[in-house]
């Protein structure tokens, strides 16, 4: 049981409990919440935030941050859609996604260059490019909604992995686009855990100075991180635009903080080096539940932001407070620092 109490003291644990409690309370007050229809709705609503969150998670893990991904997504989405509307509205999905991903990669590499080569602070760079990319989009690509998006995107929005009908006759469904979310989760989980690139990301988030002394290609790794984020943002743009069935250049931009909130809520430290994919998923789910479901139990939607704000402070703050309490206790009672000491067994070994 020790590993459980210890787990529950981490940010991830606190958020897991909060999520479960919230689901139970909402489900108790309004059973509709726990219906398959509502749960699938939640999944659909979390696709965009979810993929974005996976990208932001990588940035935070490396000790950086990216706030420009929404502008990259909007630009890649609008640029790609506009291009195909002009040259071939009947183009299949793959080239549309490829063009968006390429635009994302180019914009991401601008971030990457500024951060890796010129070693500028990530927040400043991406704050600048957020505004710059979006302004560029509106000035040079256009500022009008495109409603006649390519056929293949419309088809994607109408395709479902699963579809059911409730007793009262209403439809519910799991959209095909949720595959993109799953792919993003699997990709990032694999990348950070099993590849050298992923371990370098952790290492850089832990100590950049140590990394450069160890001969880790810090600049290259950082550059690739922001290119990866750009590509993921580009793809997300098309997914989002398909779901919305419109290419709106004003869409997405403005939601960056919501995404970062979800990632931080999931226990990823803003100072880098710590955080899990599962925690990020929990964070995204929690934010989505709050955004969508407080209405179900009769709480005004204005409260959503208050609740999310409070949760960030609680989710990130409680583990810190527990840590500090523990540190104070051990300051009063220092463990004997015998040099070749065997630390207390880690939680895993008790399972």
């Amino acid at each position, binding site marked *: 049981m020790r590993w459980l109490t210890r787990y529950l003291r981490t940010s991830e644990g606190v958020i897991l409990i909060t999520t479960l409690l919230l689901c139970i309370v909402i489900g108790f007050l309004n059973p509709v919440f726990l219906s398959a229809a509502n749960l699938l709705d939640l999944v659909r609503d979390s696709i965009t935030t979810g993929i974005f969150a996976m990208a932001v998670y990588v940035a935070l893990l490396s000790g950086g941050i990216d706030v420009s991904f929404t502008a990259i997504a909007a630009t890649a989405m609008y640029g790609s859609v506009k291009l195909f509307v002009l040259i071939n509205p009947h183009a299949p999905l793959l080239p549309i996604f490829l063009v968006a991903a390429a635009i994302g990669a180019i914009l991401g590499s601008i971030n990457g260059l500024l951060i890796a080569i010129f070693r500028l602070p990530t927040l400043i760079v991406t704050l600048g490019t957020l505004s710059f990319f979006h302004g560029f989009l509106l000035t040079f690509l256009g500022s009008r909604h495109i409603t006649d998006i390519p056929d293949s995107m419309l088809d994607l929005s109408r395709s479902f992995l699963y579809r059911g009908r409730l007793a009262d006759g209403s439809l519910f469904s799991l959209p095909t686009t949720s595959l993109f979310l799953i792919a993003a989760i699997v990709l990032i989980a694999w990348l950070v855990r099993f590849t*050298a690139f*992923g371990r370098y990301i952790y*290492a850089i988030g*832990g100590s950049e100075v140590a990394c450069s*002394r160890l001969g880790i290609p810090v600049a290259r790794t950082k550059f690739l991180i922001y290119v990866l984020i750009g590509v993921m943002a580009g793809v997300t743009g098309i997914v989002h635009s398909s779901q919305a069935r419109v290419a709106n250049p004003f869409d997405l931009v403005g939601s960056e903080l919501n995404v970062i909130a979800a990632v931080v809520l999931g226990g990823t430290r803003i100072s880098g080096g710590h955080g899990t994919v599962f925690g990020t998923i929990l964070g995204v789910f929690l934010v989505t539940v709050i955004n969508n479901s407080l209405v179900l139990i009769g709480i005004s939607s204005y409260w959503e932001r208050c609740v999310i704000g409070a949760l960030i402070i609680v989710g990130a703050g409680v583990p810190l407070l527990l840590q500090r309490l523990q540190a104070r206790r051990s300051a009063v009672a220092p463990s004997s*620092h015998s*040099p070749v000491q*065997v*630390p207390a067994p880690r939680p895993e070994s008790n399972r």
Partner: protein
Amino acid sequence: MASLVAQNISKTYVRVPVLQDVTLSVEAASVHCLAGENGSGKSTLIKIISGTLSADTGTVIIDGHDATRENALKRIGLGLSIIYQDFSLLPNLTVFENITFLDSVSRRRKFANFRQMKQHAQETLTQMDVEILLETLVEDLPVANQQLVAIARALRNRSKIIIMDEPTSALTRREVKALFKIVRSVSQQGVSFIFVTHKLEEIYEICDEVTVLRNGKVVATGPIANFSTADLSQAITGRQILVERLQPPAPDPTAAPLLRVESLTLPPLFYDVTFDVKPGEILGLTGLLGSGRSELAISLSGKTPPASGRILLAGKPISPRNVLEAQALGIGYIPEDRLNEGLFLEQEIFDNILIGNLWRRTRGGLLDFRQIREDGQGYIKQLNIKAPEGTAPVQTLSGGNQQRVLIARYLDLGPKVLILNGPTMGVDVGSKRDIHLLIAQLAQRGTAVIVVSDDLPEVLSICHRVIVLANGRVAHEEPVETLNLNTLVQEVTLES
């Protein structure tokens, strides 16, 4: 055969020669000490050997290969590892991943194989005869174990020569002993070590050979047996350092105690501690790590008030609840870790000295900069702080001068009782002497001084009386006149 030769190395910075024709030759399977004061050129030489800095002239040969033109990464590949003072570990990763990281990087592995990493890490730890749980995060390890992980990482990368920069500065005596044992056994397996240090006792304990740098030149080199302590300390400092005692003037024996502590208890740290200090007296408080010496001092500073017992200041019982109250009452505490707990490294010397008492130097609610400059300058002169100017950031000073800045700050508070925890930790031999003299001066002015230290020669050198703590209790108390180093070492180590 020599595993590392740095030959005829010279380096000049802006026309100032930092290294002049320095030759360092390290035999395989030996421990070589590179000694010298701060600013002697040790760090520059290490940087040149590591390949992060290029020399003006000279060659570097690693394990028989001429590495003079190779970059730092190539030199790691040739078997050179440097363990910096901060260890350069990855705090957020596990022990096993840290141990295998360098190996994985240099072999350009594209994927992480955790089972293999664990296996390799365990092999290396077994080879070192060390037991550390593989899954622990490095940031959760005690410092001594972090250092072992750094050594294990170098070994895992098949290093033939490991340079350790000030490896013992963060360790206690016991940890140092354990480290030396491991270094000894590893070196017998064919790995050579370079210890960069300025602690004389350690040089004798661990090293086979020694090279002393002073002002960028080699002033002594050869097997350690060829040098006496006096030879070495003279070589390092360039002057005759008295090994004998400072013998500060004795306090007035009839004076009433300034600070008296009765049955002070704070479980589980210390129990029933009773002692007193007269004005002008220097009391040494020593003991092994965990004996309660630091904890007692911290408690007296007001940070962790005792659970029971009495503290009397000039006969009146006091019970400060925090550091500020203790300071207001006249108890000053200079922390052990000056870099993290004491100084604002990036701020100027003036600010560092006067920060505790800025409110006294205001005019109409605004800071009086003229006063601040004058007072700051006064302390720099009084304590003989060597600095280009008072507005220089503290981090540009040497360890000894940094410590003086910290002492100046507490002097400014005008304490009746001054507690110094580890006053000369990480300070070179010459500055150490100066700080001791400073402490003696303070006492002479009527301050009651408590020196908390595990540096026994230091305790013998400057204190009037020594209290040895063991397991949180006073184990021994004796005037310094009747003590010598051997008996004190016995008292300290036997009591635990």
